[in-house]
């Protein structure tokens, strides 16, 4: 029993932390956020060269063989550095869906392109009406002459603006919210009938709404099995939740330390405001909650790894169920603690915290946005309750 990182993991952590410290200061980030792409391709190529884009992929696919714990290590540091690059959207989600299915070998080439930084991908699964229900899919795919014809709209697609390739969930059977009958299609972003509208979110990340009008997809361009895309997608989202939780944890720690430091220098009525006991106790509450979040992140990451390592199918199913609950619990806590830490950091920074020129507000906005990705506090809490109380 130990929670220490291995030597390799420590190397990754230090590598990401040091790179961002040296190359990704707040002014640099502002410029990147204002760019058309919403992230920096130069940095992305550096990420590739430093080997980070290979981390979650299996060794036989040219990867490092990393798991949810390794994701978390990278993401926590990306969170602290407030990096805009689409590690989550392109590597963990898009790459993960390609690499973790039974047909991974078919995607070897594209995975290699992800790893070397030459391919951008995105997963398009959210629709205007779906809110956080993965199974609520109105986009249709109907078979016609051996091709699937896709029609519908996906919204707020992370990295949609930059993606060369898209994985799109569409309904091939069943009713609007059935979990079966959903298929994941592998679509070229430049295919005829695909159109994008992209826009920035408050956290500086760009996203796109993607309209599909009679988009023809060859029947072999399916990720996983026909009608059975839901489970794949749900598992990819679980791993993405853990990854964003790690990013959020990095942000919370940054905000906590920034706030503690600020209250020690900021004076009011002749003394540092950090000497006021009411503020001290509130910062202690922040600390306790951030530590609790780290504990739950460790729990979720470890149970995700355990579930995917289990060989016996019964054990595996049991562990997956447990891991699902851990992940939902984590999602709830990240939302709650993110809100608390963000609010308190802004409040204790006072006026200066309300300005665009201080980084605090930008960290807070990323935390708020994370809360609405893959299910908010209320959605996740209700799903958790279903898991534990039926």
């Amino acid at each position: 029993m130990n929670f220490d990182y291995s030597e390799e993991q420590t190397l990754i952590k230090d590598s990401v932390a040091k790179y961002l410290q040296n190359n990704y200061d707040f002014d640099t980030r502002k410029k990147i956020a204002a760019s058309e792409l919403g992230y920096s391709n130069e940095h992305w190529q550096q990420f590739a060269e430093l080997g980070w884009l290979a981390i979650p992929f299996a060794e036989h696919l040219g990867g490092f063989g990393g798991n949810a714990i390794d994701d978390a290590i990278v993401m926590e540091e990306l969170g602290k550095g407030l990096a805009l690059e689409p590690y989550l959207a392109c590597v963990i989600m898009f790459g993960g869906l390609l690499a973790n299915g039974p047909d991974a070998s078919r995607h070897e080439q594209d995975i290699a392109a992800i790893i070397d930084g030459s391919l951008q991908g995105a997963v398009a699964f959210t629709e205007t009406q779906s809110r956080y229900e993965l199974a609520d899919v109105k986009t249709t795919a109907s078979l016609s002459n051996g091709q699937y014809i896709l029609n519908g709209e996906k919204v707020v697609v992370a990295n949609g603006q930059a993606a060369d390739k898209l994985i799109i969930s569409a309904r091939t059977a069943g009713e609007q919210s059935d979990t079966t009958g959903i298929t994941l299609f592998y679509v070229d972003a430049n295919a005829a009938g695909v159109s994008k509208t992209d826009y920035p979110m408050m956290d500086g990340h760009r996203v796109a709404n993607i309209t599909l009008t009679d988009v023809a997809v060859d029947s072999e361009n399916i990720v996983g099995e026909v009608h059975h895309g839901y489970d794949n997608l749900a598992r990819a989202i679980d791993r993405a939740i853990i990854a964003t939780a790690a990013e959020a944890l990095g942000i919370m720690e940054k905000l906590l330390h920034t706030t503690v430091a600020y209250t020690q220098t900021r004076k009011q009525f002749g003394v540092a405001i950090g000497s006021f006991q009411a503020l001290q106790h509130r910062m202690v509450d922040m600390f306790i909650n951030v530590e609790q979040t780290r504990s739950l992140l460790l729990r979720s990451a470890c149970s995700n790894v355990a579930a995917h390592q289990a060989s016996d199918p019964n054990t595996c199913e049991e562990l997956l169920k447990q891991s699902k609950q851990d992940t939902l619990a984590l999602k709830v806590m990240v939302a709650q603690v993110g809100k608390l830490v963000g609010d308190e950091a802004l409040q204790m920074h006072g006026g200066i915290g309300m300005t665009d020129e201080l980084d605090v507000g930008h960290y807070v906005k990323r935390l708020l946005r994370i809360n609405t990705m893959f299910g908010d506090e209320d959605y996740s809490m209700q799903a958790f309750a279903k898991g534990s109380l039926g």
Partner: protein
Amino acid sequence: MDITFSDSDQAFRTEVRQFFAESYTDDLKQRLGSSATFSEAIIDWQKVLYQQGWIAPDWPAEYGGTGWSSAKKFIYETERAQAGVPDVLPFGLKMVGPVIYNFGTDEQKTKFLPAILNSDHWWCQGYSEPGAGSDLASLSTRAERDGDHYVVNGAKVWTSYAQYADWIFCLVRTSSDGKPQQGISFLLIDMTLPGISINPIIGIDNRHTLNEVVFDNVRVPVDGLIGEENKGWTYAKSLLAHERNAIAGVGDIKNGLSAIHEHAEKTMSAGQPLTRDPAFRARFSQIQIDVMALEYSELRTVAKSISGQGPGPESSLLKIRGTELQQRVQELMLYVAGNFAGAQTSDSIGNDFADRARVEYMYGRAATVYGGSNEIQKNIIAKAILGLG
């Protein structure tokens, strides 16, 4: 105990409601909603109010006020919020105006009050400084007497709308003897004077509302001094109490809840409107309940005021709970916006509620900091009401 308003008050309510329905046009509403047209539109609207004679409910009638009773003022304010009409810019009408008619010379009154009433002068406020937030007394912008002028050096910060302002009222240090509160003077400064520069501050809502105003050897005529030199703190304090009382914002909170209700009814979640979701219902109801209480807390203050008792430290309660509730409404808006929350565009993304939710949430974070932070308000209650040393 009598919670009804008089017949004449009820008639007044009808009159006010009608006026807003007719005069607050869709065109005004739309122009006020966009940052590009806001500054012109608010002046247009204020001139409508001026024509109606309702621009300054709180001013004494002799200076151009309405002469309304506390009950009428409360009714006016309630109806204004309920109609979704924004409040007037406070800097001239609610801040420096009262200071001028209470403490100014006859010349100052003649020069400034009419221009405030008809919105010819846009005023801004120069209190806060870099390095001094709620602790106003520690300010360091200096004004040194040189013949018929003060020479002003220093910087003010968090100055709303300085980019549009013709005049700024400032607290400046004219002496460093005695306690920090002493030696402060209240000075009116023409924004066109040489040596004044404005540095925009972009807020976390991505808008330009706030500014830093820097004074570099600005020569201000001494007739801009309010009252006596070194007594500015007294004048400023009387104004702060006023500001605190006006801040509960019950009407705006109720308006926000209506917008949320409407949007949640159209938002699907798990196959049904979000208004059926038990978690949403609990969040929404909790805010409603708290604002129902706050509304009566405010009414109790109004009733005290009607009976001639001024607002005491309990106005801190209205500030604290009012701003907390405003922020909870803004938070719930963001929740309702779902995946779209935080979108920095309202065009063609299928959700025009999200942009409003983002801007209001972000701008609203300041409410618990300005006007004396909520922590300061708690200190006031602890000391003045609970008697804790």
